[in-house]
């Protein structure tokens, strides 16, 4: 979940035209800390997410309702060129090979929790 929130923070920051340094300065944290939030490597505590939502002018739900929320309507995923490339590549694999890829994805998702 933290990776998804991080991606949303990065998107909202870029939409606001702010660099990581600029947003970090407004939040009162280091650029390295913000970078780790955006990468989902560091867990956001609720007070920090509230502060980010205030500074970036987004409701807190914007960051929480992630793609997981949109699992049942995945069409938008194809807008991401990387995901599209993965899907195209997977389409050329055997069913067994696809299951291996899926197992790896599940492993990665579990590891990041």
């Amino acid at each position, binding site marked *: 979940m933290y990776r998804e929130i991080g991606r949303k923070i990065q998107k909202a920051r870029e939409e606001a035209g702010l660099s990581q340094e600029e947003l970090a300065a407004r939040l009162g944290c280091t650029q390295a800390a913000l970078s780790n939030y955006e990468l989902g490597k*560091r867990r956001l*505590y609720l007070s920090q997410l509230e502060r980010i939502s205030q500074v970036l002018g987004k409701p807190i739900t914007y960051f929480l309702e992630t793609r997981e929320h949109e699992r049942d309507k995945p069409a938008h995923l194809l807008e991401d060129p990387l995901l599209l490339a993965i899907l195209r590549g997977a389409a050329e694999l055997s069913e067994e090979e696809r299951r291996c890829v899926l197992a790896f994805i599940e492993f990665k998702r579990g*590891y990041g929790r």
Partner: protein
Amino acid sequence: MIAFEPTPVQEEIRARVRNVARDVIAPLARELDAAPAPDPRRMPEVLAAHGLTCLLVPEEFGGPGYDNVTAALVLEEIAAACAGAASIVAATMHAMAPLLIAGTNAQRARYFPLPVRGGVAAFALSEPRAGSDAGALATSARPTEGGYILEGQKSFVFNAGVAGFYTVFATSDPRKGKAGINAYLVPGDARGLAVTEIHDKLGLRTSTTGELLLDRVFVAADGLIGHPGTGYLLLTQTLDWGRAFFGAIGVGLARAALEAALAHARQREQFGRPIIKHQEVSFLLADMAIRIDAARLLVWRACRLMDREEDFTAASSMAKLFASEAARYVCGNAILILGREGYVRRNAVEKYYRDAKALEIVEGTSQIQRMIIASQL
């Protein structure tokens, strides 16, 4: 500044709790641990009578308002007398944490005085099919007129049956995944709430643990903690924070086992001298002491990071993981040093060993701690 010593005020608090732990908690713990069906209310009553269930409750609500380092010092002292008693306190702290993080003033005014008045609370997260994977909760919270209807089952809830209130995690919309999870305040006497006590635990027998059945339990709208959709962040933040306190319990437990082993090693003679004079035993005791000190410093560091509102996730997991493994190591070796005397039910180290095993499971197994630490590297 790096602080390796408690402040004079903390020393005073520690000395007071140490006396209560030795004179009141330890004798009761021995009695309850030996009972076939211990009364689950007795230990919470004793802890509350000495003001030990409300460690973090702010002064404005009648509590002592301890910081996290002081709370860890207190938990170590309680755990040195009985880890089960310390787990009662820790479970209450867990139930309070979401209120400390995101509770409204009205919620705090209603629920904070409870442990001050002598009650305990419970944190209800784990389910039959969701333990380590906290995101897979099945307990539902359906919106209804004026509030929510909670339905589901919670497993291995500390203080179940004696809690004045439960902080229950449930999902309001499974399609939203983790973003659908919320935390709800459920009074202990709520209609539709049923508790089944788990009997015959291996350790922590002085505390009670139970299964919680929520059969269409109504929670008023003001029972929701925090903004809708923030429950997953609340629960991970609470668990990250709480792990250091189970680390403090491990430190206290291990300390008690080392003290018992030391006393025995100084008194017991073999081959014409006390066994502590044999290098094989003294080196074992040295290794036990090193692990306890290292665990304590990890706990203090994590708590200090919390007090300074800095990132504490990895530090807290490291403290819990190291301290719980240290506790098992120290308690196991204490039995070894005591030999046949340590292997019987009447000896305290036997209880320590059983209690230590629980610390490697609760609040995330050792494997989960390693996953969290690795994800933060």
